[in-house]
């Protein structure tokens, strides 16, 4: 009987997790009207893909620029709303679209048949070639696809280039990474021998790195695969129609070649001129700010919830105890990265206005709570039962006993373990960068994109993380010393 009940809790718990999936889609096509009603067009993109989309610094502020951004701007203007860019991993774009985190996706995305099964596309607005970025030192060896035989090729995961390499370079290993910057680092450190890239992007990287070179390896490409189109949620015909009208106008006036690409090129040259890290300190400062916000808020809620779960786990009520055990085991048994994505995309499908920062904080707090709960439980169990007996024999209630006797002593015992958890939190919070929270990790990637430099920003971020965790350890150590007297 006891066992049955326990399994019932687990099933209820799992159901509670699954239910959010069941009502994701709103069928009727009032998409355009909805966008007009809220007055902003939320556009998802992956801003490490010059000249399509990338970041530029203007008067100390980060701006999203590139030909896709120009198109999005025109489209927003045409339908009379404001534009809001949401930057995230290329991989996450379609999920964000399906879960209505964004109204549309523009990211140099090719309307492949596979993608068309889950989202709708506009007309093709631009067609580019597929090139290969290589180290200049290898220029003599690699000219065509055949020359790469047996070598490792890098490509952005989820991208057209990735499938191209898979299909047309069967004898090669493909190394898939989410960020182009990381792929270029891999190339420079000879982890891969070439990175398949869209023409304009590849050229941009080569221009900014004297050790790199662009070649056209001769991928066999059909037109539908090389063209870029705007992605919309399935069934959003009204938005697709409106976008097609904008694209028609752009094509009629040849705006992409006449205005958008030259503007993007100008931004790219300003970028490459200001490659010194000193110019980007505001990026890192903002990253530190967000990392600290996430950590501090998550430490607070993690501690409060953790205490609650610890007390629930120690409860004699089987239901309460079972819930706490299920929660703790489940959270500790799944990766933080998955939890972050689940909260943002899963819960976010129900509460669509859930900002990435809040989603990140929720996920990190909930995760931390499970670990803190176990630390606190061990602390409470380490207090001899004589303490409770002495307190109860004085007529103090269970609550008063916990408050004045058990918790203060437990806290002192677990302080080092708790401190360790908080230090870990600073580091683990870096995972929220995958859903586009502008923490230190995310900002570091922006600097990589903006400067075309791979390793130095990583090194700077590493040092900053260390300084933060080291100072926190010192502060915690100070309080630990103070508590020793008590």
């Amino acid at each position: 009987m006891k066992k049955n009940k326990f399994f019932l809790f687990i099933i209820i718990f799992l159901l509670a997790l699954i239910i959010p999936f069941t009502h994701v889609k709103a069928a009727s096509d009032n998409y355009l009207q909805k966008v007009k009603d809220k007055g902003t067009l939320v556009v998802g993109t992956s801003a490490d893909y010059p000249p399509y989309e990338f970041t530029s610094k203007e008067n100390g502020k980060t701006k999203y620029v590139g030909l896709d951004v120009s198109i999005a701007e025109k489209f927003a203007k045409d339908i009379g709303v404001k534009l809001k860019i949401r930057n995230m991993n290329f991989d996450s774009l379609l999920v964000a679209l399906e879960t209505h985190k964004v109204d549309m996706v523009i990211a140099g995305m090719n309307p492949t048949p596979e993608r068309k099964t889950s989202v709708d596309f506009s007309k093709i607005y631009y067609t580019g070639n597929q090139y290969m970025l290589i180290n200049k030192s290898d220029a003599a060896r690699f000219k065509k696809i055949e020359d790469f035989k047996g070598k490792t090729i890098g490509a952005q995961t989820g991208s057209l280039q990735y499938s191209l390499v898979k299909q047309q370079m069967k004898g090669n290993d493909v190394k898939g990474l989410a960020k182009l910057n990381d792929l270029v680092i891999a190339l420079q450190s000879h982890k891969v021998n070439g990175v398949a890239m869209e023409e304009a992007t590849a050229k941009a990287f080569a221009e900014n790195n004297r050790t790199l070179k662009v070649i056209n390896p001769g991928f066999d490409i059909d037109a539908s695969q090389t063209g870029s189109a705007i992605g919309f949620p399935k069934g959003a015909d009204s938005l697709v129609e409106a976008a097609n009208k904008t694209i028609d106008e752009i094509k009629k006036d040849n705006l992409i070649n006449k205005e958008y690409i030259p503007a993007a090129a100008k931004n790219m040259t300003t970028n490459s001129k200001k490659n010194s890290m000193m110019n980007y300190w505001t990026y890192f400062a903002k990253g530190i700010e967000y990392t600290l916000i996430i950590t501090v808020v998550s430490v607070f809620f993690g501690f409060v919830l953790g205490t609650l779960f610890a007390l629930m786990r120690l409860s004699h009520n089987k239901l309460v105890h079972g819930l706490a055990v299920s929660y703790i085991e489940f959270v500790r048994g799944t990766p933080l990265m998955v939890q972050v994505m689940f909260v943002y995309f899963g819960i976010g499908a129900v509460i669509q206005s859930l900002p990435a920062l809040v989603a990140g904080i929720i996920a990190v707090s909930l995760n931390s709570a499970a670990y803190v709960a176990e630390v606190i439980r061990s602390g409470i169990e380490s207090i001899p039962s004589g303490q409770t007996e002495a307190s109860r024999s004085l007529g103090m209630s269970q609550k008063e006993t916990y408050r004045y006797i058990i918790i203060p002593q437990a806290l002192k015992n677990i302080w080092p373990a708790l401190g360790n958890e908080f230090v870990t939190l600073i580091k683990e919070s870096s995972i929220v960068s995958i859903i586009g929270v502008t923490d230190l990790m995310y900002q570091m990637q922006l600097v990589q994109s903006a400067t075309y430099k791979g390793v130095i920003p990583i090194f700077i971020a590493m040092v900053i993380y260390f300084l933060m965790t080291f100072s926190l350890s010192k502060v915690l150590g100070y309080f630990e010393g103070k508590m020793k007297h008590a």
Partner: protein
Amino acid sequence: MPNLIEVQNLGKSFGDNEVLKNISENVEKGQVICVIGPSGSGKSTFLRCLNVLEKPSVGKVLFEGNSLTGIGERELNNLREKMGMVFQSFNLFPNMNVIENIKLAPLRVKKMADAEATQQAEKLLERVGLADKAEQYPQSLSGGQQQRVAIARALAMNPEVMLFDEPTSALDPEMVGEVLKVMQDLAESGMTMVVVTHEMGFAKKVADEIWFMADGCIQEKGTPETFFKTPKTARAQDFLSKILN
């Protein structure tokens, strides 16, 4: 004398192990009772059942006519206030200094004003001869001093009865005397006391009645003179011959 504590058909089992068997006894107001007997006879469990730190498996414990079992947590707390308890291992709160230990329950449970609680605590410390240790933490005190603080802490709630669970067993021999002295003073002041102890000298001198326990039962009881001189049961004779030689 009215009965302060009435024990009716008390039994306690831990799993299959029956530790207390059908005990019915009364403690009168002002009485000092010493419970003695061999290890494992159930003395401590019996004492802990009196204020329901152990929940009786069967039977009842009444305090001033009120049942301590089958009542709500709040009522139980109210009754426990009046039953001070002193433990073998002192159980002072290490996160508080001596005077805070004593003031805690009056402040939190009786909602006494801080000045009043401090004054009372200082008086109690004087009574147990530790007026100069008020600001010290328990770890810095000797065992005998800690136990005297524990007695003062229990007295701070103005209990009707004091329960002592082998209060000197964990002490170095030279410290036993100071604790027994405090207990004797307390007995002479008229406090009702139930003392589980191995200190036969103390029992002889202070107790009004000796309860001899073995195998989860109270085998015999009587005044110290009759019990120690002419124990009736074979168990008691055997026990006394072992500890007195």
